[in-house]
């Protein structure tokens, strides 16, 4: 079994991005890589909903892949199990990364960031203007706008997916950030994180956030799946005057499916309460321990230096945002018809560049290893659903959520 992991002639690469254009780039680079090193790269594209399961299955079967490209938050689960190799050398060789993009565990870099997504809103400028409204800047603005534009069932003001899905979870997590709510607090004496969600100010703000989203939910359609696809399709089928997404795939889909509202589709920052922070998703290469680590490092280096790299960023323009701000502002990156057409979006992205925080750095400077306990199982989504769908009291929701996390912490030990 051990021998299999060390097949030097082969690298298994599991990628979250399975857009056809991206796949074409992979194919091209892989072919070149094979030509140069003789190492064959085998791709797997399980899709973003399944990539964690795929990686888990592969490891469980004793055949870990060499490279996984996906969110660093997900990768943290692997790091905590000592499954990720130290990639500091590769990182150094390829230009390093900003602090909030790094994943450091046991003193070593475990992630080679390539790109990121910001969490922000999209709205129909035409509709807003017709009502004399502008992009909402405060929570009150947002409710007011949602209410003004709400005209069910033909049109809803906003979208608040309220179920135990990733979309629900990310919305609440982002809104918690906006209201400076923390799940955990750093306990300097223990040198560890404690659950603080149900305590003092945190609790008050958590309840406030839930209540706010409950108010907003009144102007949101009942989704049938509450998943990412619905955030986009509800918007581009003109069922909602505003929506939000992690990245600008929503714009991409609107252009493809309903081009006539594409030009009126504008980004906006999800409104702040106490902070401007939002959920930042950083993606990158992760190399698994006990695999063909050398081959994998060679490949990642090769990939990041390959001239086709730019086409890879252009696979979903504006959605795959380069990890490096220089690249964002480089002429080379901006040389793309969609980007050219929507330079406003690029400007917008640049304007919120530094405000995003990865979840594992939200509660403190130290990497928070416990975020998986609430994030992986969409506990925030549960909270939203419990409040908005089931009608539980916000206080009770917060208490239960905190209790859940504590229970899990005990189980993990």
């Amino acid at each position, binding site marked *: 079994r051990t021998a299999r992991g060390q097949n030097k002639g082969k690298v298994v690469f599991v990628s979250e991005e399975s857009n056809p254009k991206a796949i074409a780039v992979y194919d091209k680079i892989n072919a070149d890589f094979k030509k140069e090193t003789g190492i064959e790269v085998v791709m797997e594209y399980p899709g973003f909903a399944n990539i964690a*399961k795929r990686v888990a299955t592969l490891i469980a079967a004793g055949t870990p892949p060499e490279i996984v490209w996906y969110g660093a938050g997900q990768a943290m689960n692997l790091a905590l*199990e000592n499954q990720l190799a130290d990639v500091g050398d590769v990182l150094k060789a390829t230009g390093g990364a900003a602090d909030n993009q790094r994943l450091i565990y046991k003193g070593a870099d475990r992630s080679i960031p390539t790109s990121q997504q910001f969490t922000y809103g999209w709205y129909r400028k035409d509709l807003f203007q017709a009502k004399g409204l502008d992009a909402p800047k405060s929570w009150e603005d947002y409710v007011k706008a949602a209410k003004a534009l709400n005209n069910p069932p033909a049109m809803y003001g906003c979208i608040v997916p309220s179920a*135990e899905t990733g979309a629900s979870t990310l919305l609440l997590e982002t809104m918690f950030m906006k209201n400076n709510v923390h799940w955990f607090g750093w306990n300097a004496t223990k040198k560890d994180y404690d659950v603080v969600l149900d305590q003092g100010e945190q609790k008050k703000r958590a309840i406030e956030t839930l209540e706010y989203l409950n108010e907003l939910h009144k102007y949101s359609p009942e*989704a049938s799946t509450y998943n990412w696809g619905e955030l986009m399709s509800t918007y581009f089928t003109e069922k909602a005057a505003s929506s939000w997404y992690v990245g600008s795939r929503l714009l991409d889909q609107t252009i493809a499916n309903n081009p006539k509202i594409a030009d009126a589709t504008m980004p906006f920052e999800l409104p702040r309460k106490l902070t401007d922070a939002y959920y930042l998703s950083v993606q990158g290469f992760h190399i698994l321990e006990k695999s063909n680590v050398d081959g994998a490092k060679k490949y990642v280096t090769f990939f990041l230096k390959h001239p086709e790299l730019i086409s890879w960023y252009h696979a979903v323009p504006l959605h795959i945002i380069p990890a490096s701000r220089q690249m964002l502002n480089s002429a080379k990156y901006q040389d793309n018809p969609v980007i050219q057409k929507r330079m406003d979006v690029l400007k917008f992205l640049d304007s919120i560049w530094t405000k995003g925080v990865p979840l594992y750095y939200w509660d403190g400077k130290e990497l928070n290893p416990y975020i998986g306990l609430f994030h992986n199982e969409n506990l925030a989504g549960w909270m939203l659903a419990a409040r908005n769908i089931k009608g539980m009291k916000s206080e009770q929701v917060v208490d239960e959520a905190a209790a859940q996390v504590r229970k899990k912490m005990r189980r993990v030990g």
Partner: protein
Amino acid sequence: MVNPRAERRAWVLGTTGPALLFLAVVAYLPIAYAVALSFFKKTAFNPAMQWVGANNYRFILEEPELWNAFGRSVLFTVGSVALQLALGLVAALLLNRAFRGRTVVRSLFVLPYLLPSIVVALVFQWLLSPEYGVVNQVLMQTGLVARPINFFGGLGTAMWSVIGMAGWQYGSFATLLILARLQAINPKLYEAAAVSGAGPLRAFWDVTLPALRTTLLVIALLRGIWMFNKFDSIWLVTHGGPLKHTETLPLYAYRLAFEEFDFGLAAAVCSVMFVVLLVGAVLYFKLFDPTREIEVGR
């Protein structure tokens, strides 16, 4: 000269051997492995297996989630099997008559069973969507409801919607088997009932139902097992939601395995399901013994 006993043995082996071999490799072996797994701690990121005895069982049996899921499983299984039998029976009785275009209609009735669950799931999501669903449109246009019903997303509706969808899809399995059985009923029995003075309802009760008994029992058994283990139909439309209201045991096991990445716990849940079904099936056979009738009532 060939020894007839040896030849016979060769035939027995040669005919049942391949099936046995296939099943051993693709079914029994994996089951044995999975059952064994339930006594180990094995998480996805740590492939090493660690013996924990009955700990996994102790853990899940103490979790209220298991019992909640069990309750939902029973509801889903009983509800959807009952619906399948009812739909299958009504459809089969109707299709057993002669009318124009019967072949087309029959094919249509059998079709749902032959479609991938994903197709059925997608079609139902599309039909029942609160925003674009034609069903909601009709309900609103006829004034039956004021607001669109969130069939798969509502707490009170999700389980019933899933049951309805499963009934629609797998009812056709029942239709098929019942229809086949109906065609094998001696039509003379209906005439005998008629000349004895029985009307159509009475004849149905006295001739059709007894003849279908075995078939209905077999369908209930098979479909019961399948629905109890049904994963994809539910998962594809609700992922167990909203708020776990459709999280049956297989979805619970799936969550343990692929969201909490604890294969040992998941295997324990599956083993519990296995035992439940085994005990259920044994009781069922004791109560009804469908096989005896299969052989006699042929």
